[in-house]
């Protein structure tokens, strides 16, 4: 019984982890290229969630189709905030961008609140379930998971196989060096930021496919925290590392419950959270730059 539950939870954790991972790639990308910690990350996830909610409930558009829409809106928001705010702060002390992104997050929350109110929204897109014996998996979750994997793969290919991708990689390493190679450094920054935001907003859609409730202007905070941890697990500046970190995180969160539940007098669920942070610290101690970081 316990083992069946454990297996079921681990499986669910893996599926969830893929979505978590995808939802962190944008954060890692932006940090990797611009050295900007996007404290407003969760707010962009929230925007994506609202896009999915709105498209589905007002226009009846399938959330899968909302992904590209959200991505495009994210790109737009990314460019907007890059040119109005971030660009002016690239040379400022690191902390200045931290504050700026935080404020951007707050601004987004308030704008969305103005538009949609502070209700907790949700949508009900049901396309059946698969009974795996150990657990039951709704098809929407499966789609969210597959979508996440697909996006991660696309990003990898794009980064390593395209010119724009290599331009971004070079800017990450040394912007002056990239400049002498003929890379349009300003544009590379802008598009990296935009791409990071685009991915993040799109991940908001995928997350709602996974968890189609609780959509609210203030829902982002928890995701920001999670994303930070996941990003570090994966090495912070590597988007694929982030994906991997997501899987690890999902497994810990869901997998350890069954074990903690065997202890008397404790709240196992809270302890799974505790464990995930303990593991974070242990990993940082052993590998101070994350699991997948290059030396």
């Amino acid at each position: 019984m316990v083992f069946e539950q454990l297996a079921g939870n681990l499986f669910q954790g893996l599926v969830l982890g893929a979505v978590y991972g995808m939802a962190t790639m944008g954060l890692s990308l932006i940090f990797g290229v611009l050295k900007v910690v996007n404290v407003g990350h969760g707010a962009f996830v929230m925007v994506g969630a609202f896009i999915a909610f709105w498209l589905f409930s007002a226009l009846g558009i399938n959330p899968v189709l909302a992904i590209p829409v959200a991505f495009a809106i994210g790109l737009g928001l990314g460019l907007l905030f890059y040119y109005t705010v971030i660009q002016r702060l690239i040379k400022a002390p690191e902390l200045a961008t931290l504050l700026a992104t935080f404020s951007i997050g707050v601004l987004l929350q308030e704008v969305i609140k103005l538009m949609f109110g502070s209700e907790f929204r949700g949508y009900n897109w049901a396309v059946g379930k698969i009974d795996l014996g150990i657990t039951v998996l709704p098809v929407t979750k499966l789609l969210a998971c597959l979508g996440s994997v697909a996006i991660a793969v696309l990003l990898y290919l794009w980064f390593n196989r395209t010119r724009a991708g290599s331009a971004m990689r070079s800017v990450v390493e040394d912007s002056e060096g990239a400049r002498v190679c003929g890379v349009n450094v300003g544009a590379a920054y802008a598009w990296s930021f935009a791409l990071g935001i685009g991915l993040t907003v799109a991940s908001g859609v995928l997350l709602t496919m996974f968890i189609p409730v609780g959509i609210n202007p203030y829902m982002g905070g928890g995701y920001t925290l999670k994303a930070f941890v996941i990003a570090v697990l994966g090495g912070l500046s590597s988007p694929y590392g982030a994906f991997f970190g997501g899987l690890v995180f999902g497994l810990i969160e869901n997998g350890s419950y069954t074990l903690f539940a065997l202890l008397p007098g404790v709240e196992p669920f809270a302890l799974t959270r505790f464990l995930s942070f303990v593991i974070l610290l242990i990993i940082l101690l052993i590998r101070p730059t994350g699991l997948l970081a290059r030396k």
Partner: protein
Amino acid sequence: MKTKLIKYYPMIPVLVLYAALFLVGRNVSGMWQLVAMLLFYCALGQAFNIFLGMTGYVDFGYVAFMGVGTYGMALAISRLAHIENLGVGIIVIGFAMAMLMSTLLSVAVGAVALRLRGAYFAIATIGVNEGFRFLIEGARIWNGSEGIIFMAQLNQILGREAASALATFWADVIVLVIAVLAAMVTLIYMRSKIGYALTALREDEDAAKVMGINVTKFKIIAFITSSCFAGLVGASSWALKTPYVFPPEVFEIHYTIEAIIIVLLGGAGTLLGPLVGGLIYGMSKYYLSIFIPGFQLLIFAPIIIVIIVVFPEGVIGMLKAKTRNTAVGRYII
């Protein structure tokens, strides 16, 4: 001798501002609770600046030290209430507990996390904060998520009048004292080798090591000092003014972010910065929430963005650069 004193001139504007705040709070009707809030933000900034400003390390989990400080006071009051004749002594014990607990936690965290740099450090500390909270809830330590509500015990020990005065006035005065102390410690550090070592390691840790600076030692000094002040702020501004402690409310990362905003608005690593940052932050919040209730964040967020774009080094950071090598500059650091 005179040159010695000159080094401490920058304390003058700090003291003047705090004194002015106090006087306004006492004498202008309706101002005390506002002043109390401003003092909280200033103290928070002043305390955080000792670590964030001086080392350049971002401790995202800073609020954890306020949290354990709050627990320190709460535990003292709720667990020792049965002892006769403690009177105000219990508050002293509470502060001692707060200091002890935040120091212990900071030593433990520092020993582990200070090996990390940059964003890794920042995120490890988030882990500490969140992890600690979930440990309290999960292992049901100190009442777990039910927390502790202890106004009744406070009334019982001090008497109703005194307990009430403590929560609405004296706690704020204590916060003021903490803020001034934190500012003094900042200046003393700045003027001593500690300050130079910290600046050096903030700029280039490896070079600092080769210069003979025991970077770990100095980081730990700043970390513990800063955390200890955080514990005191928690014990007074939270435990005494807010006679309860619920884990999610005292480990709320939002406060770390507020602290960062305050330090940055004013100017990280400056003496006057956290004070000015705290005033700007607290007053904007207060008046916006009065004049446009419900929409203040919509206005506040862009204001912060503009301030940070215009003064990326913070208001005092900018002023300090402008007045460098002038007569005024002697007072502004």
